[in-house]
């Protein structure tokens, strides 16, 4: 039996309430203080430190409960619709909770899932699928992990993650009548408004920077700080440096590839030679870097805990920044701004989420990733008109 046939058969056996109950139990095993799954993930992942994986996974899954899944399902499937029997999920990136989320959503809808893991992180999808099988064989049979590109043509729906070129190439393979959802690579911005203590904001931003080492689309690629009174951004930079230094031992950065280490070295040097730039660096090594930019500069996005800090004059300048990032903005992490200012900035950047600093990596399970509804996007709605 082919993977597709097996998944179609498994789909027929899926009963929504039982799926959610089983997922609830699976997620509980991941959340458990002594979770063997989290332990395996930390030992085998390879890109992030075990401390980063521990905090990142535990916090992300904290509110992923059966109740939350039921609520999401009820909200998303409130109208007559057709659920795709099999959804192909093409993963990218290296963040475990993002892989779990992408697998879990079609299951909640009632679709069986064929998962092509990310080449950078083949582990997360495999472990999650294993944990499903271990908890509930029926649910486990509805998830197959593989690398067969023909599923892009034969699955009833395709959800693809990756760089824009990858998404375009995958989209081209999906027959026009099938459901296709694409999530291109994005970046996020941390914005510190005028109405927050800099120490509080620095503590929160440092967590967002340290988690996943700046590799995720929810990782801040820039930090914007309102520089009024003058010197506030520089003071924030020093506070952020102190926080990052502390996190260097609590949430150490994962091992870097040689090419990444070289790129980081160059990124710091390129910043250092520019007029008006000030660098905050650790005494030794390259664990973190804060690049305090002069007003009006337009630096390249940060990465690997090497972050440009941009002084902002006001909300208008924040909007300019977001406009410049359009359409690549994902999330805007914030503290000390008004709600209207934030929504306007997110909208201008083509983003879809505003969240509090320190929580940038932890969207709720039912978030509208890239502004796309989590489950409805997979469905074909049916209009049943009255006679």
């Amino acid at each position: 039996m082919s993977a597709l046939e097996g998944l179609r058969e498994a789909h027929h056996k899926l009963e929504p309430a039982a799926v959610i109950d089983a997922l609830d139990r699976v997620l509980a095993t991941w959340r458990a203080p002594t979770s063997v799954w989290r332990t395996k993930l930390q030992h085998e992942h390879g890109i992030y430190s075990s401390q980063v994986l521990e905090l990142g996974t535990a916090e992300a899954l904290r509110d992923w409960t059966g109740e939350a899944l039921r609520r999401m399902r009820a909200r998303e499937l409130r109208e007559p619709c057709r659920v795709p029997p099999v959804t192909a999920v093409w993963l990218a990136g290296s963040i475990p909770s993002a892989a779990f989320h992408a697998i879990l959503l079609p299951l909640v809808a009632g679709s069986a899932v064929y998962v092509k893991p990310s080449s950078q992180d083949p582990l997360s999808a495999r472990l999650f699928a294993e944990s499903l099988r271990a908890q509930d064989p029926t649910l486990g049979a509805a998830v197959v992990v593989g690398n067969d590109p023909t599923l892009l043509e034969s699955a009833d729906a395709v959800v693809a993650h990756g760089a824009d070129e990858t998404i375009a190439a995958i989209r081209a393979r999906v027959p026009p009548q099938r459901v296709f959802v694409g999530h291109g690579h994005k970046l996020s911005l941390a914005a510190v408004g005028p109405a927050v203590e800099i120490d509080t904001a620095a503590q929160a931003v440092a967590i967002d920077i340290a988690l996943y080492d700046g590799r995720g689309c929810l990782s801040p690629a820039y930090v914007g700080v309102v520089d009024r009174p003058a010197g506030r951004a520089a003071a924030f930079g020093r506070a952020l440096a102190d926080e990052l230094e502390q996190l260097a031992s609590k949430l150490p950065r994962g091992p870097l590839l040689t090419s990444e280490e070289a790129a980081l070295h160059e990124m710091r040097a390129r910043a250092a030679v520019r007029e008006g730039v000030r660098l905050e660096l650790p005494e030794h090594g390259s664990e973190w870097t804060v690049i305090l930019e002069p007003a009006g500069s337009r630096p390249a996005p940060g990465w690997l805990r090497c972050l440009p800090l941009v002084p902002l004059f006001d909300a208008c300048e924040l909007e300019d920044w977001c406009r410049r990032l359009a359409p690549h903005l994902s999330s805007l992490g914030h503290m000390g701004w008004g709600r209207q200012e934030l929504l306007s900035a997110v909208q201008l950047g083509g983003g879809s989420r505003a969240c509090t600093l320190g929580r940038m990596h932890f969207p709720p399970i039912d978030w509208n990733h890239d502004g796309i509804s989590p489950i409805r996007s997979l469905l074909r709605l049916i209009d049943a008109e009255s006679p």
Partner: protein
Amino acid sequence: MSRRDLDRKVLAWLGEGVDAPRDDTRFETLALELFAYQYAHNPAYQRLCRAFRVRPEDVARWQDIPAVPTGAFKEARLAAFPEAQEVRIFRTSGSTTAARGQLHLDTLELYQASLLATFAAYICPDRKRIRFVVLAPSAANAPDSSLSYMFEVACRELGSARSAFYVEPQGWEPERLIADLRELDEPIALVGTAFAFVHLLDALEARGLRLGLPDGTRVMETGGFKGRSREVTRGELHGAITAALGVSASRIVNQYGLCELGSQFYEPTLRTGVPTRSKRVPPWVRTRVVDPVSMKDVATGERGLLVHYDLVNTGSVLAVQTSDLGRVTQAGLEILGRLEAAETRGCSIAADALLAGP
């Protein structure tokens, strides 16, 4: 020490030629003096040194002089003199939209002395003058190309009256070049970029031609291929040159240079008669091979990232960190490619993609 004194000392060394002794004490003394000068007079370089907490008074060995990655030459004017004194800017090749690395010069005296010393020694060791056939634009047509400047100076100082450039602003002229090559009655120095040689070889093949260039002809090729022609290995290129032009491997030289450096590195093939992949490091240059992660020297003969210390760079920075991989052996410096650009191991958009715009 004044810049004038530094230039004079470096010029004196250049004047001794490529066979001058590799005097490490002399190099270290000059390098440290030059570092102190550049720290004081090159604001962008001083910013880098201060950011990494290095001051001249703390540096006792030339190896500890902070090196500037080539990428930083795209970000700031790394010059130890005021803009008003600028006589030339060499720029790295690249698209018109992307930032390009720049080498700012307030004098061409050292640059010229260095290039002539090495060019004469490694390309014209057997003759005072030779006819140059240049597969690159002239300096008039490419004023910001260090390579074109080098060929221009070589033609002027070492070339015969019939030397010519065969790449025009609108492109190159295969018909004129091939016609001239077929009618040669004297040995030439056929010099140019590696990708230009690929185009020449393709043009010859398309016409079903094989030439036998006169005895004594030598070939010098330099640079990479990316985006300019099909890519071939150096061995394949040299083999194809031998087959299509009748120039033996012992008369083909690869040159390695960077826009950001005043000195170049050549294979000594024409001096020794033996083909080699190792290049000679001029006496006034030192090359460190470092581990890209620790930035510490690797063991002799091991592969690593190349960092050059070139005394000719008096007006900019003497220590330049490249993205080139190589190794140093008894035979010299071997180039082993480039460090791969880091790919994002995550789902964050890459800087290049963002900066490229929609």
